[in-house]
């Protein structure tokens, strides 16, 4: 490698970080050597997730929150995720429109990411990008998810504090009792709180939280914040809520537990991804997949048998053995 991107990133180069993030998105091999060097310098930044339905004001809220965080001198990295088209693979990433005023602060780095077919409200590489921004020296990393519905909750696997943004007028009390997104909030935010119905929504969320407390012992009860993000109202209180949650995590030991669980899950996910890539490559190259699909179509073979055969064959294949031998030697 001619340019040492890792060294440049550790010195705070936005440009080097930008290129590494592109490689991570593309699953380009060049990324991994860099990430290996950066890994020891990660784990320091605090990660805040902002999630909620489309149009709830997540981008505006992220911008206004960032302004508040910057007042304390902390450096901020923002990851803004928008959906890729399932048909063309392209994407229109519009979160930056609301973030214009942050564009020329050198201590803020904003990256728009497309989901590229990854479900759950996040981009596949988002966790890797968090590490890059962490190594880049950002103190707080704010991830704004895709506009989500009820069940896209992957943000909890990446964020230390998850803020669920709701707006008045989208549903009755039953919505607030359901599983999924209502369960993942460490902090609730009622944005557009100047619109009618915000008191009702607040009451419904509080009722749910009361019910939750009766069902199960909880160390942390999510505070409910009201904001009007376009006017910058309520953002100081929202940041205080996030900081209180951080303090709770640290004092209770949950911070360590959560991070440990996350690292374990991520390691498994990476192993899963790489194994799948290697096997798929092999199947595509030797033509076995095409042949098998033909048989599956004719019902001469079933996918359950195929799956077991392929895994058994692969485990006993020479390539796999060679890798094992190499491992035992080294």
């Amino acid at each position, binding site marked *: 490698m001619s340019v040492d991107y890792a060294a440049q990133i550790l010195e705070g180069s936005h440009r080097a970080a930008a290129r590494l993030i592109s490689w991570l998105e593309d699953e380009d091999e060049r990324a991994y050597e860099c990430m290996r060097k950066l890994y020891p310098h990660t784990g320091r930044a605090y990660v805040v997730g902002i999630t909620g339905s489309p149009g709830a004001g997540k981008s505006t809220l992220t911008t206004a929150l960032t302004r508040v965080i910057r007042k304390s001198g902390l450096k901020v990295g923002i990851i803004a995720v928008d959906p890729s088209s399932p048909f063309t*693979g*392209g994407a*229109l*990433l519009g979160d930056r*429109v*609301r973030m*214009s005023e942050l564009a020329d602060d050198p201590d803020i780095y904003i990256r728009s990411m497309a989901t590229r077919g990854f479900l759950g409200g996040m981009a596949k590489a988002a966790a890797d990008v968090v590490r890059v921004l962490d190594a880049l020296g950002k103190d707080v990393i704010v991830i704004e998810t895709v506009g989500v519905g009820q069940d896209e909750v992957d943000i909890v696997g990446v964020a230390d504090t998850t803020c669920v943004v709701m707006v008045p007028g989208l549903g009755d009390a039953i919505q607030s009792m359901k599983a999924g997104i209502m369960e993942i909030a460490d902090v609730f935010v009622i944005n557009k709180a100047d619109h009618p119905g915000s008191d009702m929504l607040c009451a419904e969320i509080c009722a749910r939280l009361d019910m939750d407390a009766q069902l199960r012992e909880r160390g942390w009860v999510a505070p409910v914040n009201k904001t009007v993000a376009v006017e910058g109202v309520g953002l100081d209180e929202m940041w205080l809520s996030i900081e209180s949650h951080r303090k709770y995590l640290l004092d209770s030991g949950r911070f360590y537990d959560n991070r440990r669980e996350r690292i374990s899950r991520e390691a498994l996910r990476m192993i899963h991804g790489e194994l799948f890539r290697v096997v798929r490559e092999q199947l595509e190259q030797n033509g076995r997949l095409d042949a098998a699909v033909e048989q599956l179509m004719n019902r001469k073979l079933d996918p359950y048998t195929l799956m077991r055969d392929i895994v058994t064959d692969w485990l006993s294949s020479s390539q796999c053995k060679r890798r094992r031998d190499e491992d035992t030697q080294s």
Partner: protein
Amino acid sequence: MARKIKMIMAKPGLDGHDRGAKLLARICAEAGMEVVYTGLRQTPEMIVAAAEQEDADVVGLSSLSGVHNYFFPRVVELMKQKGMEDVLLVGGGIIPEEDYDFLKKSGMGAIFGPGTPTTEIVEFIQANVRQR
């Protein structure tokens, strides 16, 4: 995962007409690119910062208010200062044909006037975009 072309679509200056820019952002997204729309009233500094942070391969500038001869070369200049010469710059909007030469000489990859077939723009970008 295949590499995707990343594009910034920006409106420099005070011009508030972004129907064309939005349409073109959608056309490029339909062509499989990842297009970041920056919104209105961008300074050249904001556009270049966005291009840097997003690792943009292409920056599209739209102008309908006659300020292209100032803003477009200014963006080119700032990109050069940051060593981002490999980023493809394309412009469009209401731009008199007699200005095309000046803008291209100052570093714009291409200028597309009204009525340009959108496929021509997409093909030009795909043919001239950098490798990374």
